[in-house]
């Protein structure tokens, strides 16, 4: 059994995240792996640097897991997120969720990635051919209920 949450500069292991959600009652496991893409909005990406506010980021992953496990009965979720320099094709985030039934596994997994992009204090510094740019998405606020509702709506569509 590995840890349910991790913020780490080491390469991620899908198997490790899967082990963290093992247990009785599961009938379905959905996983999501985010990869560093070779292109972004027309730019040829060379590599990404992920910077994290590590202790709050790890806590935020725990908040997301608690939200999901409260919303989907019997769900067990784990999320590992990588930091530092990542090459094209490497995994930046791995989510796994085990549930009794498959519809919930897909919904909870989708919810988690949407929430990660909303609240987890991690920043992506894109190095592309010809320059570099900090990618900025959502203003992070774990207490923003409207954001949470938006993530739920995407997950349960």
């Amino acid at each position: 059994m590995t840890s349910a949450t991790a913020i780490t500069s080491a390469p991620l292991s899908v198997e490790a995240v899967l082990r963290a959600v093992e247990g009785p009652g599961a009938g379905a496991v959905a996983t999501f792996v985010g990869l560093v893409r070779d292109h972004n909005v027309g730019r040829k990406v060379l590599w990404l640097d992920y910077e994290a506010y590590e202790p709050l980021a790890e806590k935020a992953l725990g908040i997301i897991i608690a939200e999901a496990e409260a919303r989907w009965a019997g769900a067990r979720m784990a999320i590992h997120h990588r930091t530092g320099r990542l090459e094209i094709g490497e995994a930046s985030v791995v989510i796994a969720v085990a549930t009794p039934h498959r519809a919930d596994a897909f919904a909870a997994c989708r919810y988690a990635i949407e929430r990660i992009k909303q609240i987890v204090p991690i920043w992506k510094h894109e190095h592309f051919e010809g320059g570099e740019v900090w990618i900025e998405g959502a203003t992070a606020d774990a207490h923003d209920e409207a954001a949470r509702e938006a993530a739920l709506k995407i997950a349960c569509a």
Partner: protein
Amino acid sequence: MRVNVKLFARLRELVGQGELTLDAPGATTVADVWAALVAAHPAADAYARSMSCAVNLNYARMTTTVADGDEVAFLPPVSGGSGAAAR
């Protein structure tokens, strides 16, 4: 009052450091700490409208009270998760 300020990503670059101890005499809220930061480092003002904050590893508001020795983090808009564009 003295607080430990943490800055990240482009905000960190604008200020030139990711961690600093800030003297903010009379400060009682996160907003006061931010004002002291911008006074010392005007470039930080670029994030006045888009940053969020945390106090002692709890997500906070600009109205959250701070005490001497607190860790106050200012967070530019986040972009963790997948390397793919948002869609």
